[in-house]
């Protein structure tokens, strides 16, 4: 368990687990329950070909025979209370991969059920919690409908997509999702994961990898880079000036390099995307935020990392995320010590407060 610390933290990435599948099925429409029940604990969500060699989860979390973080009380005791979390945003865990299911119809129903499950089983139980709207990205019109439906509940503070996808999210087919989010004043979070699963493209860009360590190193970072570059090149933010995107768990040490590379190419290849009137890095600074977790370890060269990140917009574009209860979780207290002092308030709280805005219901300082 983490030490008690005195922080005011907004945690952008907490993963509730479905501990009781039968209870969850109660949120699925009756005519589809048999199908989902027949899929077992996976609920038909594509499984991982690359699996952590021991466990996806922190081994210290009390489980009581269920997956960790499968009930509000555990999350309260293990995370919210000791870490000084003012607001924690719940992001579906494996459930985020609904967008990679072969059937968009099953995916739409599962997303809807998950949203309702979060509303009744989590948000109603703990006022510090907020949630992300799950939606079936493989059917953007259905996704937009679900976004608009759930946005009426202000405790849902963002739309959630997964890193795994059959094409990068700047593709015009996905536009209805981003339009709906922007219309509702919701940021779109793209959480790494699912690369190479279900209908998603392989991770890494050079064919399927061999090991989990490769997948975890490349898959999440490469999909995040791809979505970032795609959204910028397609002019998504020019189309939707109010849109904000939060990229979660894809790493950040690569960010200056990819933005410098993109800016260089933008100057040289502007006739390819002539609608980009501004440097992509400038647009990214305005519209894109990044979660800190997992903040790369630097072998004592943190100053170099922070200097590089400053060149890419930090600390204004960084938001704290714990990724609780996963094995590569970042403890807020640890992050507090690691970040430059002048960054701490912004990264641990203020940037996320601005990103989510009035939906959080927080009094302005």
């Amino acid at each position: 368990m983490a030490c008690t610390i005195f922080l005011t933290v907004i945690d952008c990435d907490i993963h509730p687990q479905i501990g009781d599948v039968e209870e969850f099925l109660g949120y699925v429409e009756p005519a589809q329950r048999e199908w989902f029940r027949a899929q077992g604990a996976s609920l038909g969500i594509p499984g991982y070909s690359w699996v952590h060699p021991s466990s996806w989860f922190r081994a210290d979390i009390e489980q009581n025979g269920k997956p960790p973080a499968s009930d509000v009380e555990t999350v309260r005791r293990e995370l919210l209370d000791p870490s000084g979390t003012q607001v924690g945003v719940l992001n579906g865990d494996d459930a985020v991969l609904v967008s990679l299911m072969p059937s968009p119809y099953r995916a739409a129903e599962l997303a809807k059920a998950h949203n309702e499950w979060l509303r009744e089983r989590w948000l109603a139980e703990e006022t510090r919690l907020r949630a992300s709207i799950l939606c079936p990205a493989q059917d953007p019109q259905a996704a937009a409908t679900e976004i608009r439906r759930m946005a009426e509940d202000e405790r849902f503070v963002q739309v959630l997509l997964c890193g795994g996808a059959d094409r990068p999210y700047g593709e015009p087919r996905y536009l209805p999702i981003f339009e709906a989010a922007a219309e509702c004043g919701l940021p779109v979070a793209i959480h790494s994961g699912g690369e190479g699963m279900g209908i998603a493209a392989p991770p890494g860009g050079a064919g399927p990898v061999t090991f989990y360590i490769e997948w975890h190193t490349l898959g999440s970072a490469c999909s995040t880079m791809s979505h970032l570059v795609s959204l910028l090149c397609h002019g998504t933010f020019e189309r939707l000036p109010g849109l904000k995107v939060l990229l979660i768990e894809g790493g950040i040490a690569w960010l200056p390099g990819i933005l410098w590379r993109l800016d260089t190419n933008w100057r040289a290849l502007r006739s390819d995307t002539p609608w980009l009137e501004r440097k992509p890095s400038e647009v990214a600074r305005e519209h894109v935020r990044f979660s800190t977790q997992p903040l790369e370890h630097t072998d004592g060269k943190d100053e170099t990392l922070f200097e590089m990140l400053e060149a890419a917009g930090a600390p204004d574009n960084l938001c704290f995320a714990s990724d609780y209860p996963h094995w590569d979780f970042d403890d807020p207290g640890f992050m507090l010590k690691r970040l430059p002092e002048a960054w701490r308030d912004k990264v641990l709280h203020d940037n996320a407060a601005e990103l989510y805005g009035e939906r959080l219901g927080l009094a302005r300082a």
Partner: protein
Amino acid sequence: MSWEDVGSVADLEREGRVIARIGGREVGVVAVNGELRGVRNRCPHHGGPLCLGTVRERLAGEPGRYAFGNANVLRCPWHGWEFDPATGQCLDEESMRVAVYPAKAEGGRILVDI
């Protein structure tokens, strides 16, 4: 300032530009919609031979749509950076500008005021 001969009108019409070395620097003249533009033949980005680049109408448009933007540019042959041939300003990098000079045709010759 003096008018210097950098080539023939015939060469300009055939090649799309004329280039000459004047006082230790290369200067070229390109025709842009019938106007003659004198430009230093050295891209401020990487030092490429800018006047060997192409004159094109700069593209613009809403996301997903390609349209002409009603402005002509001189595109460097090395990295494709685009410059306003009238002012020398790089249109994609505010800090970059190439020297430009008045140019005219007279008696079948191309002259640049340097």
